[in-house]
């Protein structure tokens, strides 16, 4: 077909060894060579910043967001907590980040690519660690940008209208900002783990979004109050204790919440590690 030969002329044999940094690079190339990655991450950023800005404008009365039905269920009408107002987009960010994480885990099982990947990295686990590392570093940048740009932009809007702002020095504000970053990144990783365990985009998304968004609301509505002491350990309720400036009394303290959420994360990733090791690809 051409003069090209199959032979590659490399000198030292070790030049073609498998190394973790190389697997990391492989996963990095994989992530950025799919156009959907940049689109999804860009959308996360845009949603978090734009919703924060709109929500802040609406809180200062600069924008009328009340539709015909009145302001009752309006997501932009802040609860009076200025941090919640400027971070109004985080709730949507959480959704998109969940999708991104699940896709990062389940996509290769859907396409069959996982067999090519594990044939190249037969030790298997380096692939998991590399996927986690790439996802964490990417989401960290997106979450930090999204949360802090929304915070500063929203605060600027609020203060220009002489409305109450969430001052950097106010108690719990910095913690809540960092908490939101951690929650976004953590959810993405839990999504990744679920995608790898369930090997299905639909299954992973259903489990994560059902468990994060609907289960807490549904359970607290249906179950008697005595269950509340258990429900606060659900990932989203645990996270609420450190993502809000002042969480309701019924929830864990910020520190406890962080530990519980971290445990969920560790359990999910450990589950993925076991699934990857034990099961046939």
């Amino acid at each position, binding site marked *: 077909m*051409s003069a090209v030969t199959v*032979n590659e002329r490399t000198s030292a044999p070790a030049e073609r060894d*498998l190394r973790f940094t190389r697997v990391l690079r492989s996963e990095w190339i994989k992530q950025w060579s799919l156009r959907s990655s940049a689109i999804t991450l860009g959308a996360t950023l845009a949603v978090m910043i734009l919703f924060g800005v709109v929500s802040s404008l609406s809180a200062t009365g600069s924008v009328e967001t009340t539709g015909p039905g009145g302001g009752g269920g309006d997501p932009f009408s802040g609860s009076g907590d200025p941090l919640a107002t400027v971070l109004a987009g985080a709730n949507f960010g959480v959704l998109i980040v969940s999708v991104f994480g699940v896709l990062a885990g389940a996509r290769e099982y859907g396409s069959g690519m*996982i*067999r*090519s990947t594990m044939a190249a990295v037969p030790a298997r686990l380096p692939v998991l660690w590399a996927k986690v590392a790439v996802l964490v570093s990417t989401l960290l940048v997106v979450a930090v940008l999204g949360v802090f740009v929304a915070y500063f932009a929203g605060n600027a809007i609020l203060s220009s209208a002489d409305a109450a702002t969430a001052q950097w020095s106010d108690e719990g504000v910095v913690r809540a900002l960092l908490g939101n970053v951690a929650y976004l990144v953590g959810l993405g990783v839990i999504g990744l783990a679920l995608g790898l365990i369930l090997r299905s985009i639909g299954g992973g998304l259903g489990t994560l979004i059902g468990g994060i968004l609907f289960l807490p609301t549904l359970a607290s509505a249906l179950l008697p109050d005595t269950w509340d002491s258990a429900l606060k350990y659900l990932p989203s309720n645990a996270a609420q204790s450190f993502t809000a400036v002042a969480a309701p009394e019924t929830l864990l303290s910020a520190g406890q919440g962080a530990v519980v959420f971290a445990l969920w994360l560790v359990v999910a990733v450990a589950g993925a590690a076991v699934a990857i090791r034990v099961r046939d690809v």
Partner: protein
Amino acid sequence: MLEIVELTKRYGDVTAVDGVTFRVRPGVVTGFLGPNGAGKSTTMRMILGLDKPTSGSALVNGRPYVDSRAPMRELGVLLDARNVDKGRSARNHLRALGATVGIGRTRVEDLLELVGLSDVADKSAGSFSLGMGQRLGIATALLGDPSVVMLDEPVNGLDPDGIQWIRGLLKDLAAEGRTVFVSSHLMSEMELTAEHLVVIGRGRIIADMSMDDFIASASPDRVRVVSPEAVRLREPLLALAKSVTSAEAQVLEVEGVPASIIGDLAAELGVRLHELTSISASLEEAFMELTRESVQYHGAASGHATIDGARA
């Protein structure tokens, strides 16, 4: 070098591979033949460590593939050309996989050129035709310049030009001293490329021998003799041959006597010969003969076939 020892894989009740033992040596193309569902792909997945054997072991260059220090350098594989993320370009697919062992852009470009995909390297792999996908799979297999090349039905979907090319490629790879292990259920294909054969049926090894031995063992050589005086040859040949059949008056088919002896005999007797042809059994026939009992999924003989839900 591949060494497969007592390899067994059960999926629930199904024993896909059943105590298989064989070696694949470097320097020759080894064909891995068997009818549908015989266990070829399962064996290959176990060699790769993708499926864990129920028992037994598979060694690549003397150790389990899982322990390989430079996997892509050691074993290059094409399992299923569809094992790619559809949204990624061919070039980035190769870059991503190659990156695991530090393979860079130059090598990726070389491989794209080798398999003839340079012009479509930026197209998404999902848009590829079967044959283009197959070429990408072959590029993936050769990316690490591996000492063992293992391809599961590589000619699948290739056009005649592509088939021609891969035949040459496989022989070249073997000539360079690599171990080349290629599965197929197309006997006619293996006949042209493989020097050694491992035949599997219902998960068990039926034959493990050179191509020549395989053909000889499965079906004896026959000689076709055309002579206006065929009747005069018939009697003396019957004394020597396993069988002599005659479909037409002037034609004899002799089994078990080489053409040279028949020719000499005719000369001695002064019998005129118009034709003397050795007919060796085709590999296709030999294979069908050998695997007759182990073919699981027969096509229906008539148009009255019913689909009984099992597998088609």
